[in-house]
């Protein structure tokens, strides 16, 4: 644990924020006020945060359909996100995007993406911009185990190597691609397959924030130094269904329960931080309480947020037409 207490507090807070955001959406969703598909990130917090704690302003990330965690880890405003998920006119995307399309260009967050595999070539393009600026910045794409089989992801890996681009491929193996186990769809294994393209891979336990942070730190340092693309491969699980409403027939009944009890990333982080004497249980409880308050406020304001009207439907197709 070479991180400062301030850094650790920051990371813990972000992870808790994601967790509470998602747990709360899981509670709110069945009430019928939230439209569309909602894919929750709970269980994988250590990955998004372990990666993003290594990034700074100049860097870019691009996310997936399961984007809340990446957005929050990158510093998007949870209130604005909540308004977006509720489809409000003052949401991060004016209610036009919803859960699957949250983006915040001002934070180098190039968007969640409803097309599996859509983001990787886009992130590579941002990496090219980083290389051209020559300021040591990097571009990160998040890719699920299922997404890793999409042709665009392979193309992006290949081209990143060809162009020696400062591109960070984060593979999140959460065991499932919708209703299908990760092991079914992947030919070879993620690590060997990635290395086959000439991309070095750092593996990390995706439940362990410090492991992800350190793997990412080392990997990203390579990319920043101009030594070409790198990959981080982290394994975890998702605590909820593929989308809210998924009956999860493909999953053993107690699977999630065991992960929650034995491996949960927040539980592990708390234990290690407290054992190391960096924070006390009550320090952390205070963070948790503040986060919960923040989420309460976000939900309350989102529920009352302004409904979008016809102007919002028609604007922003073009800058000028």
């Amino acid at each position, binding site marked *: 644990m070479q991180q400062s207490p301030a850094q650790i507090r920051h990371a813990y807070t972000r992870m808790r924020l994601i967790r509470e955001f998602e747990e709360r959406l899981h509670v709110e969703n069945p009430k019928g006020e939230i*439209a*569309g*598909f909602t894919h929750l990130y709970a269980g994988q917090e250590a990955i998004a945060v372990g990666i993003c704690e290594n990034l700074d302003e100049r860097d870019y990330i691009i996310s997936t359909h399961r984007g809340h965690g990446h957005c929050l880890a990158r510093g998007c405003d949870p209130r604005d996100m909540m308004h977006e998920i509720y*489809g*409000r006119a003052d949401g991060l*995307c004016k*209610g*036009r*995007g*919803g859960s*699957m*399309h949250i983006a915040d260009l001002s934070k180098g967050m190039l968007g969640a*993406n*409803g*097309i*599996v*595999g*859509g983001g990787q070539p886009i992130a590579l393009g941002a990496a090219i911009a980083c290389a051209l600026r020559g300021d040591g910045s990097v571009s990160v794409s998040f890719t699920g185990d*299922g*997404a890793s*089989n*999409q*042709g*665009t992801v392979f193309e992006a890996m290949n081209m990143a190597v060809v162009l020696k681009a400062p591109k960070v491929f984060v593979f999140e193996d959460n065991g*499932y*691609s*919708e*209703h*299908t*186990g*990760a*092991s*079914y*769809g*992947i030919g070879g294994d993620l690590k060997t397959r990635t290395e086959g393209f000439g991309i070095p891979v750092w593996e990390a336990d995706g439940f362990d924030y410090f492991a992800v942070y350190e793997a990412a730190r080392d990997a990203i340092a390579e990319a920043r130094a101009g030594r070409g693309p790198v990959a981080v491969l982290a394994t975890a699980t998702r605590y909820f269904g593929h989308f809210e409403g998924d009956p*999860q*027939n*493909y*999953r*053993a*009944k107690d*699977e999630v329960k065991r992960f929650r009890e034995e491996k949960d990333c927040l539980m592990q982080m708390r234990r290690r931080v407290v054992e190391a004497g960096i924070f006390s249980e009550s320090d952390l409880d205070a963070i948790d309480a503040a986060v919960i308050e923040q989420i309460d406020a976000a939900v309350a304001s989102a529920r009352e947020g302004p*409904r*979008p*009207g*016809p102007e*919002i*439907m*028609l604007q922003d*197709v073009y800058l000028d037409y």
Partner: protein
Amino acid sequence: MAVMTMRDALNDALHREMERDERVIVLGEDVSGGAGGTSGSRDAAGGIFGVTKGLLPRFGDKRVIDTAISESCIVGMANGAALAGLRPVAELMFADFVGVSFDQIFNQMAKFRYMFGGKAKTPVVLRMSMGAGMNAAAQHSQVIYPMLTMVPGLKVVTPSNPADAKGLLTQAIRDDDPVMFLEHKALYARKGEVPDGDHLVPFGEAALVREGQDATVVAIARMVPFAEKALDKLEAEGITCDLIDLRTTSPLDEETILESLSLTGRLVVVDEANPMCSMASEIAGLAARKGFAHLRAPVQCVTAPHTPVPFARELERLYVPGPDRIEAAIRDVLKEG
């Protein structure tokens, strides 16, 4: 006749055709579901909308093939399997995913027969869910039939009710040409009477859903029940229209449209697509080319705006052409001439 949902009617057609012809195979993401999962179930999904439910237990995993997320490969495999004598029914969960598989649709399956001198047969059915109605936003809500209809070599099917869904899917599977089969996701739960046993609806024959005097209304898929709603209201005032459900956009039943137009002289086209180069444009153009002699008023097109599909409930409702806009267009078409 039994009353059932469109989902069940489609499922019935798939079961029947797989039973009838062992060359029929089904492939796509989660068409069964559960492979590699921890529950042990191999019918955990049956397609995300449940349309392929029960096929794997009945026909086995050599004929009901779960794939990775690789849509180009899914469609390409269907193409190759068809060239090699099978009759694949491939699934793209969402029609929007033609984006990641478009080459295999537009440059491959559509063109084999022609390019190869008439020797190839590519009896692929590509099933996909389309349309707004679930607040699934810009990348999961498009109706993409115009961009498929324009491609020579493809047939394009857009059922609006359970009976047609069964009859058209059966026809699609038995058809020797590549068929794009577009299932409107807001219609899966629509119920209706469905003929028992074998039921076929031929392609290129629009259905005259209602007969009337004052105008011709042409509609597609979900726009058909919406148009019916509008007509219910107008009929109370004594305004009656022919309502034509295209059922297939390619082949397009020009005769039925033109015949109706020759009687009414007025045309309203209702299309959930964006306006440019849409089916609405095509049919309005048809009227200008071949129906001009009968046309007594400007054609009215009711379409989505030239915008992506927005997410929020309020916005999606504004986006989709609904009964109110259809009603207004019919009133407009009656004003002039």
